[in-house]
């Protein structure tokens, strides 16, 4: 009898998931440098051409206006309104998108029945429907929530369907041979297996949700960052328009990175979580 084959355990640092490499550090240096360079070009352009502040305000003025926004409770009320509309819309997009996606992926006739309608809702330019939503749901927050949800829904749905359909047959065999119940198969195999796909859907979805909320605010009501932007435009306050734009972009970044953080928490085993 031969001895069992000995396997030595490699030191943990060799298997460490996240290694700090030069490539990993690069964006932390290049991003601030490039942003700074952009601002310098912007500044020099404004100073040398003497362009009207109505067309392009100087970066320093925009900065001052943005800081003033941060100090203004009114601006924050608009911000919270947009955040709320985005998140509530996004929430319903997840509930309907993931729920319907799981069902469609498992039930063949349901997929065939619903597919033409789902494609139709995608082909119709949804932003063009916003006036209709305003007519139906009024100038309040409901119409914004619905636009956000309608926009975010589709990528979440398609990614969920793809995720549930991509489940490894071998993994299914394991669960079948273990006599797992339908619920156990869903909870222990289908959901974790589809999660990386669903999170990709969420990453696209959150960005669309914020776009939906802002477009909704453009066209109806007087609250929210979208409405604020339109108000500044009508008042010819281009510098404040820029400040609102910066505010919106930062909000988008925050949401996007929140999903990225969720990825690292929920699926640390997946490659996509390591960068």
């Amino acid at each position, binding site marked *: 009898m031969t001895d*069992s*084959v000995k396997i030595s*355990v490699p030191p943990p640092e060799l298997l460490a998931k996240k290694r700090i490499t030069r490539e990993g550090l690069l964006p932390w240096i290049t991003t601030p440098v490039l942003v700074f360079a952009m601002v310098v070009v912007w500044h020099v352009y404004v100073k040398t051409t003497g362009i009207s502040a109505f067309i392009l305000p100087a970066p320093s003025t925009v900065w001052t206006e943005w800081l003033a926004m941060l100090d203004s409770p009114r601006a924050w009320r608009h911000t919270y309104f947009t955040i709320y509309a985005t998140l509530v819309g996004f929430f319903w997009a997840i509930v309907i998108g993931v729920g319907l996606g799981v069902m469609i992926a498992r039930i063949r006739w349901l997929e065939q029945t619903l597919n033409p309608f789902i494609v139709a809702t995608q082909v119709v330019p949804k932003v063009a429907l916003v006036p209709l939503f305003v007519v139906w749901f009024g100038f309040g927050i409901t119409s914004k929530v619905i636009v956000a949800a309608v926009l975010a829904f589709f990528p979440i749905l398609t990614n969920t369907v793809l995720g549930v359909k991509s489940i490894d047959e071998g993994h299914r065999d*394991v669960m*079948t041979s273990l*006599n797992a119940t339908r619920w156990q198969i869903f909870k*222990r195999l289908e959901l974790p*297996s589809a999660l990386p796909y669903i999170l990709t859907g969420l990453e696209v979805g959150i960005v669309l949700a914020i776009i939906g909320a802002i477009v909704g605010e453009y066209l109806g009501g007087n609250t929210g960052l979208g409405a604020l932007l339109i108000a500044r435009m009508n008042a010819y306050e281009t510098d404040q328009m820029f400040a609102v734009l910066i505010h919106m972009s930062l909000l988008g970044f925050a949401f996007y990175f929140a999903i990225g953080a969720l990825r690292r928490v929920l699926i640390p085993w997946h490659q996509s979580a390591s960068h």
Partner: protein
Amino acid sequence: MSSAAATSTDPHPAIGLKAIEKWYGTRDTPVHALAPTDLAVPEGQFLVLLGPSGCGKTTLLRMIGGLIEPTSGELSIEGKNLWRGGDRQSEALSELGMVFQEANLFPWLTIEQNIALPLELKGVDKDKRLARARELCKLVGIAGFEKRWPKELSGGMRQRAAIARALSYDPHILLMDEPFGALDAMTRDAMNLELQRIWMETKKTVVLVTHSIGEAVFLADRIVLLSPRPGRIDSIIDVPFPRARGTEVQTSAEFQAIVRRLRVRLAEIS
């Protein structure tokens, strides 16, 4: 070489097949995957199903494992019927552990969580099942890797974890479908030695599918040679070498004689 007298005289075999048959496909283009087959595997035996592709060996193993329902015939595990009215019987299933060609570990579970998964499904509490997983890691030679993700392990080590998972709930029977088919030749030889050791330590009944003649002769107490179109038992060969077999057995004249006989017969029936 004995003829196809597959039914042993053992009144209580670990696995009993009576006229098990399998048809695939549609009414217009039916495929006869397995002709009515009788087979009895005594408890503790290491049985190898060997045959060319299309001989129904994997179909046969998957039927024993309850993954495919036979078209007709009776299939008993430890005297209990596996199928009753289209449903699998859980008492029979819990005597079976399956190992596939791919390790099929869940990438979102660590090695110990993977090994403990069957116990989790059965409702065993966490401390108990993880303790069992750690014990099995030692048995299959992957101690120290309990908290790793599957992707951090080599192919051979992943297959060891898959064997540990199949053993977790201590079934009496281990079913293995070309478990080392995806491994390189050297790892495969090492894994064959390991499998023999694990089998001798755990005293399980093993049914292993392979298309490697050398692997079959090295591992088996008894080889069931299957021929294709339709799949059926061609012959049964007992392999007499004493245990534990070392690598040197493979160079013996007797070993080579059995390999040669099987190779000639395989060429005739393929």
